[in-house]
């Protein structure tokens, strides 16, 4: 059940190009870590290495003390482009079922579990809809429901709200915080939205590009539960927001 993430000297070369170099990281069990950095700094590549989709060329990735060499049941991934991460020919219920089928859950037990999972992301009324009939926010909720079906200890999220409008994004941010608090999962959250990183995270990791490496750790000292208005008005939030923007400005210069 405990699933801290540890990276030791992780480096990755892809097609002769060095993407990541010497990454040392430690994310505690139940910690919410956000990753920011200019484009091309290897954020998504790092997430793929954690997911076991792209094995690193150097160093090692440990989740719960076990080296990651392939995708694992207890590590779920929320992809950025929800429309390409769902099966368009399956209903919402069918898409959640995809995760349960591979876990070998008998068909009879699935229906109740699917309904429960959809209810947890507010899609109980939409079980029979196809992704093409759902809004972007609903599709991303559906993808999260499918991830929850895995009962993950680690949630890897790749700019999950990047394509959503501001209101939907805030709603989903709070929903994810709620689900994470409920289950105590460890979260690795890639984003290009600095305020989002400060609002969600326990800490923010700043990467620098060419090759991608860890440049800075920011500790987020904000009380939980977070609140979209109150949290964003605290001096600590504003101070953090300032240092994140300074970091990005320096990184892009």
């Amino acid at each position, binding site marked *: 059940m405990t699933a801290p993430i540890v990276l030791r000297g992780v480096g990755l070369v892809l097609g002769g190009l060095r993407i990541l170099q010497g990454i040392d990281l430690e994310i505690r069990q139940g910690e919410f870590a956000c990753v920011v950095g200019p484009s091309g700094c290897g954020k998504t590549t790092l997430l793929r290495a954690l997911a076991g*989709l792209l094995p690193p060329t150097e160093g090692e990735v440990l989740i719960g003390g076990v080296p990651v060499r392939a*995708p694992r049941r207890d*590590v779920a*991934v929320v992809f950025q482009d929800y*429309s*390409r991460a769902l099966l*368009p*020919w399956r209903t919402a219920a069918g898409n959640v079922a995809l995760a349960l089928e*591979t876990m070998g859950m008998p068909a009879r037990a699935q229906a109740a579990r699917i309904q429960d999972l959809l209810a947890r992301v507010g899609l109980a009324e939409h079980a029979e809809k*196809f992704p093409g009939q759902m809004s972007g926010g609903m599709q991303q909720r559906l993808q999260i429901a499918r991830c929850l079906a895995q009962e993950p200890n680690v949630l890897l999220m790749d700019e999950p709200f990047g394509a959503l409008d501001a209101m939907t994004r805030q709603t989903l941010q709070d929903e994810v915080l709620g689900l994470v608090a409920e289950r105590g999962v460890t979260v690795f959250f890639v984003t290009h939205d600095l305020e989002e990183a400060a609002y969600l995270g326990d800490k923010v990791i700043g990467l620098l590009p060419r090759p991608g490496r860890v440049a800075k750790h920011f500790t987020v000292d904000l009380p939980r539960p977070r609140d979209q208005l109150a949290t964003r008005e605290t001096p600590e939030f504003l101070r953090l927001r300032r240092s994140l923007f300074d970091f990005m400005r320096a990184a892009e210069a």
Partner: protein
Amino acid sequence: MTRLLRAIAVPAALLLAGEIAMRAAGSSSDALAPPSDVAAALAALLADGEMLRASAETLASALGGLAIGGGVGLLAGLLFGAVPAAARLFAIVVEGIRPIPAVALIPLALILFGFGFRLEIAIVAFAAIWPMLVFTQAAVAAVDTQLLDVARVLRLPLAARLARIVVPFALPRIFVAFRLAFGVALIVAVTVEIAVNPLGLGYGMTMAQQTLRPADMLAYLVWIGVLGFLLNVLLLVVQRTVFGRFLPRGARP
């Protein structure tokens, strides 16, 4: 109603003009017949069962060849699309054989099989392989890489990955390939019948021509056109009802 009238106004006028011109010229032709004579001949051929028997022969050959050639093309396309290394291995063989016109194999097939269904089915099968193979291969190769990532993260075994992700994704395009292959099969079947094989609609038409019965010959021609049109409409309706809603982005034909 007025729309229907407008749609048939030009064809009806052309047929009428043909009728008047043929009647005015008064002479009997070995190549042409007035539309009314053609219609009468078509009715007679349908009434005595000759046309339906010939249609059954042609369709049996076309479908038999399509089943064999389309099946081979489908399996090879699935393999080549899913395993690029296999596609590269067979590339020279495929590209070397594919340009051979199917009807150029008639002499060879005649020696192997003699006159009859086997000859015709063999030629049709050869012709049907290629549209099926090329389009299926492209359809499988086009499966969204992110969906494949999802499949890996959910740890779907290879068989489930094919059955639940790759084939459903590629199916709409594979059906388009089937429609094309079907058209090719019909064309090649009739061609083989006209060229050598004493079977079906093509043979019936050739016989009518050689015994100087232009009305019968044209009746066969009209019937082949009607048959091809109706079969294509049927396949289009199937395509729309089965796949219309679930076509992934970019797969709409």
